[in-house]
């Protein structure tokens, strides 16, 4: 690389079954604020000359911490009323990658995905194996109640009543 290039960052937060036309002004403000906080987290890394890998990890962690988005705290609920969270991260420079599947207690799945990438010989760990790896790495875990929000409980009740499985980002239903 002969010289510095401009940094760039983008994020998505497919944030609920609520379309914009149905959002209250208060809810729209919350969603926009969440996007802004996450963008700021990644931007801070890049402006300081940090790596793209650190930037995407910090951005996604901020989204996982915000209960309005479907990841980490605020994840949707399975048919059993549990959370099962997945995450992945990939470094375009080295083609290294890490992924975790079916986490039920790990606070920030994307951080664990990076640990799989950097501290295991594997690309992907799933369910109990991923939880065991998280414990081995000292990853922070939380009780189920920390992840579950009233909005997600209502969504599950409605989905059960309608006998559908639903995406997190539109009114589309897939059964």
């Amino acid at each position, binding site marked *: *690389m002969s010289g*510095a*290039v*401009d*940094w*760039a*960052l*983008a*994020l*998505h937060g*497919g944030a609920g079954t*609520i*379309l*914009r*036309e149905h*959002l209250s002004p208060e809810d*729209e403000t919350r969603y926009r604020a969440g996007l*802004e906080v*996450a*963008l700021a987290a990644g*931007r801070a890394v*890049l402006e300081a*000359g940090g*790596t*793209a890998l650190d930037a*995407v990890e910090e*951005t*996604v962690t901020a*989204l*996982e911490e915000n209960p309005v988005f*479907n*990841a*980490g705290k605020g*994840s949707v609920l*399975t048919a059993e009323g549990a959370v*099962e*969270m*997945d*995450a*992945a*991260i990939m*470094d*375009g*420079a080295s*083609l290294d990658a890490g*992924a*975790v599947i079916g986490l039920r207690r790990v606070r920030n799945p994307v951080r664990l995905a990076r640990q799989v990438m950097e501290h295991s010989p594997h690309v*992907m760990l*799933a369910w109990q194996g991923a939880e065991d790896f998280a414990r081995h790495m000292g990853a922070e875990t939380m009780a189920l109640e920390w992840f579950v929000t009233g909005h997600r409980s209502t*969504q*599950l009740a409605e*989905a059960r009543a309608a006998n559908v*499985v639903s*995406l*997190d*980002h*539109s*009114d*589309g239903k*897939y059964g």
Partner: protein
Amino acid sequence: TVGAVARDRNGNLAAATSTGGMTNKQPGRVGDAPLIGAGTYASNRSCAVSATGHGEMFIRLTVARDIAAMMEYQGLDLAAATYRKVHEELPRIDGAGGVIAVGAEGAPVLSFNSEGMYRAAQCEGAAPIIAIFE
């Protein structure tokens, strides 16, 4: 589902995706987010991609890696590659959703074929974009 893609000042690319999946899903169901090449992919040779949507369709079309492959093997630019995948190929199998992507130069591409997409993006020296797309 949430995700991010980035390019740093050294020209390196990265992608990350995280999700709770689908409401009322069968326990054990895995979508595209954690599957490298489907919902998440990054290569300095082409682009970084993170996807959100109906995961089964994104898995079947290996969406993220396919966008990168179109750039590497066909010479398509990022916008053309994402458009073909999101607006031409995914709809053929009723694949709803979209991607965010960034390449070695230029602004990120935000591409989606369904409603209610929450997005933010910024390039160095430019104002941030924060939007809920219909």
